[in-house]
């Protein structure tokens, strides 16, 4: 128990001290609200607008979740195809890496033109695309980067390729999938927010932040930022919980490999 306290206490103390220092700095230096709002003002706004913030969080969160699930399923499916057909991998992988290197969420502006102005589909497509590449690159690596000793062993057991896939490649790729999910969960949330900057309905956290700033309601904007932080954190925590529930020996396996 004291060990747990020792891991939890330092970041908590630091966090509280940081907020206190922020509050004090705003008071002491008499910082104007348009420059920086005090944490107490932000908290007031958060408490007063709870239902509005919740509604905006629900909209952005749904977009992120739908995109995360769709992108993960598509990414897994494609990585199986790529690992099965080497030629396909040689063609698609450089393209995937190139696409991953550019800030592809600007594509949402183009996608917005394809659907009606109030549609959530462009945002969800955008999240799907971002998650898809992260999952694809990682899971494909997990399926193909198997130790040569283990492949030779399976061949010495006269195992057919289907058994090697089932008993070696897929289990080997599981930690890679969870690594991908840990990266894509926050990325999905961020993409969902940023997608809202490019027009469409003004109903999500991202568009609320911009509209509040436009109306000089800075503390309210910060309150929505707080909501965004909590949403991102929730996605990340769920991805970690899913990982430890699905992996024998928990996350240790990914870090403490036997070879």
């Amino acid at each position, binding site marked *: 128990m004291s060990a747990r306290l020792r891991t939890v206490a330092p970041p908590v103390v630091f966090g509280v001290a940081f907020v206190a220092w922020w509050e004090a700095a705003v008071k002491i230096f008499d910082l104007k609200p348009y420059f920086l709002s005090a944490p107490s003002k932000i908290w007031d706004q958060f408490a007063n607008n709870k239902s509005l913030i919740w509604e905006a969080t629900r909209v952005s969160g749904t977009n992120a979740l739908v995109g995360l699930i769709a992108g993960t399923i598509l990414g897994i499916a494609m990585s199986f195809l790529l690992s099965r057909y080497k030629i396909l991998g040689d063609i698609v992988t450089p393209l995937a890496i190139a696409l991953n290197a550019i800030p592809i969420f600007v594509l949402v502006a183009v996608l917005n033109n394809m659907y009606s102005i109030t549609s959530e589909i462009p945002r969800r497509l955008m999240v799907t695309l971002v998650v898809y590449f992260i999952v694809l690159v990682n899971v494909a690596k997990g399926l193909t980067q198997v130790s040569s000793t283990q492949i*030779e062993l399976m061949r*010495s057991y006269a195992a057919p390729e289907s058994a090697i896939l089932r008993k070696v490649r897929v289990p080997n790729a599981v930690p890679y999938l969870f690594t991908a999910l840990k990266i894509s969960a926050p990325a999905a949330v961020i993409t969902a927010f940023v997608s809202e900057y490019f027009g469409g309905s003004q109903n999500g956290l991202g568009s609320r932040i911009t509209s509040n700033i436009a109306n000089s309601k800075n503390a309210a904007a910060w309150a929505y930022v707080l909501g965004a932080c909590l949403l991102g954190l929730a996605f990340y925590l769920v991805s970690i919980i899913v990982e430890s529930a699905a992996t024998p020996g928990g996350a240790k396996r990914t870090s*403490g*490999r036997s*070879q």
Partner: protein
Amino acid sequence: MSTVSVSHLNKIFNTGKANQVDALVDVSLSIEKGEFVSLIGPSGCGKSTLLRLIANLLEPTSGDIVVAGKSAKQSRLDQDYGMAFQQAGLFDWRTVAKNIELPLELKGWDKAQREARSREMLELVKLPEFVDHFPWQLSGGMQQRVAIARALAAHPPLLLMDEPFGALDEMTREHMQAELLSICAKTGTTVVFVTHSIPEAVYLSNRVVVMSPRPGRITKIVDVNLDDHRNETTRERPEFFATITAVREALRAGGGHTHTGAGVEDR
């Protein structure tokens, strides 16, 4: 009838290309049932290639391989041999018992049979209390013992080992050598053992096959005349040192190198 019979074996990689390698040239070798034979030689002499040809993980360019009275391919399909490598190659997502049961799963054994056999094998390698542990909870020596248990799980007549103790420290290594001999004495398994270490080859083997590179070939087969029950005092016997000297001289005579073969350890 010999367990392994190799005659006039040739293996050429990248035939006809600039980087053609004559990995093995005209290799013939016969290994009797219950025999322990080591393959030793400097890097590039083809000892691991020979092992993989016997295992049918590679196809020969020409020549014949008979394992357990069948073609190499048929004996691989029938799982007539078990194999262990320098890396234990255990599957992190499987418990120790499930690792040992993997070859049996692929043979289609039912669950009760598999569990009984994995318990039996864990007794044999003296790790019965580690049934439900995961590989990464074990030391390197313990992992290698699990790998040996897995290789022997189907009770194959032949065990093929590619430097299985190469990654272990000296103390663990000597201990594992003694363990391996006692396991083989109990099971009557024939062993082909690839190693870099002269004392290891001499301590373990009935015969030491000395190989040399460019092209890979057998230069000499040294008989080891030590009694069958070997223990720590064996390592201090004059015959032990005399055989080590004989192997070292055979390696030197193999040519390609002015001193002892590069990559062969005197430890």
